[in-house]
């Protein structure tokens, strides 16, 4: 019941988001058809505006947009005029989802064990080395990591291709470059969580009952410490799945991350609103999943 209500509540929220995105991008100075070459006559400019209904008052344009949206149509891209926004999402989203999904798996596969081990060996060299690497991963931006990875593994060692996205071989470096930051984040959050959990009363109680340290860590502390990781992982996954402008341009990957940035620079009104909605839907959906996961992980959590 609670989750049904949450889903119903998402509808007005999405409406508000679409309206805000629509108005804001129209308010920005400059339009989609401004360019270095001005048309030979002002009439041409007017024809263009009329063709895409940009000459109408904004509320009318928004109503038109909503009407199309109700039919599942995000409209024609104003920059890539032979494509509609649905095409762009259909072509780019699977690629970005693959890239983001792999980066997510990488972040978890590295971050969870690292977080666990640094907590289990707190104050030992494993902790120091692990924590140092985690901080490094968080501090290095992807536009530094990606070229370094390329330099070492593609240009010097020739292990991986330099860019493009056509075989599993092409899908190793980009997810690593993208996921590294998150793996550091996950390590730190899990370590923090485990250390906190180790001090909680029920762990002390279990220890008093004579439970072994290892079992304690896995059975109780780890499960509890996963909660902050899970709540971080929801929005992080939404971020990863919608692609990354930097990684996609460095590795020449045909995802939607590039459009997320360029559409607003190009004043591609329909594409901006369409991608904002997509992003919002992902965030809302994944937050729902996070709340559901909480229920599974922590028996103390109850939703009305």
């Amino acid at each position: 019941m609670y989750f049904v209500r949450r889903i119903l509540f998402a509808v007005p929220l999405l409406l508000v988001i679409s309206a805000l995105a629509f108005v804001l991008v129209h308010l920005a100075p400059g339009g989609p058809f401004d360019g270095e070459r001005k048309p030979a006559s002002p009439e041409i400019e007017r024809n263009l505006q009329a063709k895409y209904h940009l000459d109408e008052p904004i509320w009318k344009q928004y109503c038109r947009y909503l009407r199309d949206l109700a039919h599942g149509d995000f409209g024609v891209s104003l920059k890539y005029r032979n494509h509609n926004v649905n095409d762009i999402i259909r072509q780019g989203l699977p690629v970005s989802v693959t890239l983001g999904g792999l980066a997510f798996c990488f972040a978890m596969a590295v971050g969870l064990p690292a977080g666990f081990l640094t907590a289990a060996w707190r104050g030992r060299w494993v902790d120091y080395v692990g924590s140092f690497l985690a901080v490094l991963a968080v501090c290095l931006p992807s536009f530094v990591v990606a070229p370094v990875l390329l330099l070492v593994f593609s240009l010097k060692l020739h292990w991986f291709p330099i860019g493009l996205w056509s075989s599993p071989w092409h899908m190793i470096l980009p997810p690593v470059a993208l996921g590294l930051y998150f793996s550091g984040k996950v390590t730190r959050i899990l370590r923090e969580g485990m250390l906190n959990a180790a001090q909680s009363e029920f762990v002390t109680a279990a220890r008093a009952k004579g439970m072994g340290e290892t079992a304690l860590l896995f059975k109780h502390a780890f499960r509890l410490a996963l909660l902050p990781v899970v709540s971080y992982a929801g929005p992080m996954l939404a971020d990863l799945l919608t692609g990354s402008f930097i990684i996609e341009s460095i590795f020449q990957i045909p995802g939607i991350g590039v459009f997320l940035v360029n559409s607003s620079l190009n004043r591609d009104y329909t594409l901006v609103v369409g991608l904002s909605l997509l992003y919002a839907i992902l965030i809302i959906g994944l937050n729902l999943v996070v709340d559901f996961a909480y229920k599974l992980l922590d028996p103390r959590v109850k939703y009305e």
Partner: protein
Amino acid sequence: MLDFTRIRRIFRRMRFLFLPVAVLLTFGCSPPEPPADLTIINNIEPESLDPAVIVAQADMRVVQGMFEGLTRLEPVDAQAVPGLAQSWEISPDGKVYTFHLRPNLVWSTGEPITAQDVWYSWIRALDPKTACRYAGQLYYLKNGEEFNTGVITNSDMVGVHVLDPLTLRVELKAPTAFFLDLCAFPTLYVVPRQTIEKYGDRWLMARPLPSSGAYELVDWRLNDKVRLRKNPRYWDAANTQANIIDMLPVGAATTAFNLYQSGQADIVWDKELIPNELLDVLLKRPDFHAYTVLGTYFIRFNVTRKPFDDPRVRQALALAVDKDRIVNKITRGGELTASHLVPSGTRNYHPPEGPGYNPDRARQLLAEAGYPGGKGFPRFEFLFSGSAGGNNNQNIAIELQEMWRDVLGVQMDLRRVETQVFWGLQSRLEFQLCNSSWYGDYNDANTFLGMFQSGDGNNETGWKNSQYDDLIAAANNEVDLAKRDHDFQQAETLLIRDAAPIIPLYFYSGINYFDTNKVAGIWQNALDDHPLRSIRKIKAQP
């Protein structure tokens, strides 16, 4: 303290992570396809592949393979030579062209191409409903402008008439010396009527897509690639070199260079796709080719605002610019300094020498205008756009700021804005000085000088001069090429020496990179035009 076998077991359980990885890897792969014969890096994603929509050079370079006009450009000097038309006659007054199409022309799908298709394509580009930004290229036709702006609605009155399936009669407003070059320009390409009428704005998604050029469109995935395949029904298919061409949309210079360097691309043909930091080193390599193209970088004044309404002030600023410093320090790609707007080497034209670097004369002119030593001269602002041309716009602005301060004692502020914002400010004359550039659409002085006529949409200086307008009109009504040359020269002298609403800084150089031992069929010409049909990979000797 810790039980290692237990940890190992737990980590073994983490195998569940491998399942999504495997799924993602298989799901994320595009279906395997045969490798291309030629891979070209073509700058950012084409806005469109519709000849009536495109404005950018990168887009035109793809479209030029797919569709053809009555003429086409040959690859060496980019001269217009017979394309879909095999011959033509021009009336003595230069205003009527009769084109004869090649017999047996067909679309890549097998249907015949007739004069009716040419008529349809031109009328479509002029139709206000198409909203073609480059419709001005057809304003040279009789009633072309009137039809495009809605003054007349009857398309039969436009100066293009089908005489029979192979003959087309074209009537022009004035003898237009460069009309045959225009016939090779994308806006005038011949496009498939049936497909366009059936699919509307999404006609390029139709497969098979009828093409009138040397290649047909196989695949077009946004931000991924455009794949073209040889059109076996093209009239000159025997001379089409490569079978499959991939054009990659790459916007980042380092990525383009890396892909080329690792052998994943054969040709990179845009100067913007050279990492700026490596320019000096790379230009020395034999696979980097620099050449002068028909393009000029210049500064626009807004002559409607004080103090730049005074031509002496504008001349003073122009004379105080040491252009050598700009090409040697900033652009560094073999650019030539410009004292005039129309690049040297433009066909049938000899540009006049413009003002050079003369600090003494500059100070004198500023003093005559009432600002001796820059005293009393108001602080002014230089507007430039953020992304176009990398950091060059900014570096040039800084250099100018310094030169004008040192020579004339005037103070300039810099204002950087986003590109889309810049175009709006420029066309509404909401600036004092701004950076500008212009590339010729065809090889003729008119493509540069025509835009500074009073009220032209691309004038953007607020400068109006009836004498200039008369000279341009006279030149364009002239059949005698020597007299035309003379009229244009007088007009340009007025523009750059006397009125100076602009300061030309340098002529662009084009740079492309490819290994001449591996790729042949690209020539460095002034229009920077390289027809796809002539490019081939040299087969390695066994």
